């Protein structure tokens, strides 16, 4: 068989056909809401964020200090052993300069690009990073290996969320 010998299905449709109504569409916004149980590990993590601290969990077998914390070590397959406070500073493992929003729309004219980064947190085991964003830095100044520090919301504004850290900024300068 050769594809060229078949009439292939799928009829391309232009966006304009939807806009001008020559092809009819139905819209429906799903009403799907969830309230996820945080459980023990993430529950404590969020509670500590509200207090302006970052907490990790240690496995005494592989000796990894893990963030985000978890009640079991997924590599050693055993319960983790102790809570360990880690610092709110870290190192940029990798980053991006992003000009689109989560829904693929372009950021507004004049709005600064988002700078998502994987940040290896000081005090956690090497390579233990979290996803967050960088702020108070020009995009062209961001480098892999750069030291950064958390900028927290005011205590009264914190709600027990990863966004209680507004962003990470360069540790010096």
């Amino acid at each position, binding site marked *: *068989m*050769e*594809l*060229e010998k*078949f009439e*292939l*299905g*799928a*009829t*391309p*449709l*232009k*966006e304009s056909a939807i806009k001008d109504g020559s*092809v009819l569409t139905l*819209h*429906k916004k*799903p009403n799907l809401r*969830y309230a*996820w149980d*945080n459980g023990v590990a*993430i529950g404590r*993590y*969020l509670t500590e964020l509200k207090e302006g601290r970052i907490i990790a969990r240690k496995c005494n077998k592989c000796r990894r200090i*893990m*963030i*985000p914390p*978890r009640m079991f070590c*997924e590599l050693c397959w055993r319960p983790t052993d102790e809570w360990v406070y880690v610092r709110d500073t870290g190192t940029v*493992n*990798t*980053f*991006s*300069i*992003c*000009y*689109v*929003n*989560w*829904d*693929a*729309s372009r950021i507004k004219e004049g709005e600064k*690009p988002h700078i*998502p*980064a*994987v940040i290896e947190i000081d005090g956690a085991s090497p*390579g*233990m*990073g*979290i*996803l*967050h*964003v960088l702020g108070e830095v020009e*995009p062209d100044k961001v480098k*892999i290996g750069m030291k950064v520090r958390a900028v927290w919301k005011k205590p009264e504004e914190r709600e027990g*969320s*990863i*966004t209680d850290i507004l962003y990470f900024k360069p540790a010096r300068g």
Partner: protein
Amino acid sequence: MAYQRVAIVGAGITKFVRRAQETGKELAAQASKMALESCGMTMKDIECVSLGTAPDAFDGVHMKGEYLSDGSGGWRKPYMRQFVGGGTGVFAPVHGWYHVASGMFDTCLVVCSEKMSSCHPHPQGAFKTIFDHTTEQPLNPTLIWIFALEMNRFMSTYGITKEEIALVSVKNKKNAMDHPAAQLPMEITVEDVMNSETLAWPVNRLDISPASDGAAAIVLASEHVAKRITDKPVWIDGVGWNLDSAYWATRDLYYPRYVEKAARMAYKMAGITEPQREIEIAEPYDPFDYKELHHMEGLLLADRGKAVEMLLDGKTQRDGDRPMCPSGGALGVGNPIAATGLMKIIEIFLQLRGEAGKRQVPGNPKCGLAQAWGDLMQVGTVVVMRI
């Protein structure tokens, strides 16, 4: 070998388009019909059906597998959907493989259908909910973030430039000129890629595959049935899949260990000890241009950090020593997620049979591979095929 040997005996595909008039069901039915016709079979000959399709959020239907069942030929048959995120398309024949290899069935219709355009305003929006709901989603991430973070890590680890990586996009979009299902066949230059809109540095518009609607299907048969149907069965000789931790930010993104594990599993089953010599043609998953290189290394088809040299030397061109994505890949043919993986399987099927038309690679390859990838940079699925 205690299992039934399994062959691909027929294939079908729709055009990949930005927005199809057809529903997901109708696309699935079109691809399935072509697959059956291509090997002279009917639904009566099919004993079971396996479906692959990516997140339900694309189509906006809960339990999408149930919704798509009639279009996929599942009516009153053992019908099951499998799911490994972006790896689903190449996992589809794996799922079909164990249906037949187990001896429970002799024939299986494998269908992958994707209708991304139903998701408004853009299918990318559906991807926000792939991130951890508590520790990541509040940051409003987009899927492009993780690609950009991974690409940056890959580039900086080996000192590879964006210009070098852009050559993958140039190659694949050009290859797609010869694919009748292609959505984005183009003759472009490295400069075009570099000058296209920056979405999330280092990712530009032309580094990325498009959102697409489309479907693909294949027919699997056990050895004794396959030999009755065709004199050119293509054998699934090795299957492999592997899933790394969801704690993606805690592992180094420069190298896909899960792809290597999946490949080693498939190679072991297929008796392949020297992949760089034995795998003559491959369709690594290329939703972004750097992924082709990243995956060649994970698949052990290139040494670590060296895939880019094969690219620069022209070895991965269609007429090169080791053609990669001769179809045009996700970058050129389009990327209706699950259907893309199966499109790659179909390309290797046609290439090994010498039926790839203008896309045919020289040298009568006898052994090829298709691979897909997905989730939070986490899953690898691999199929090794021989004629």
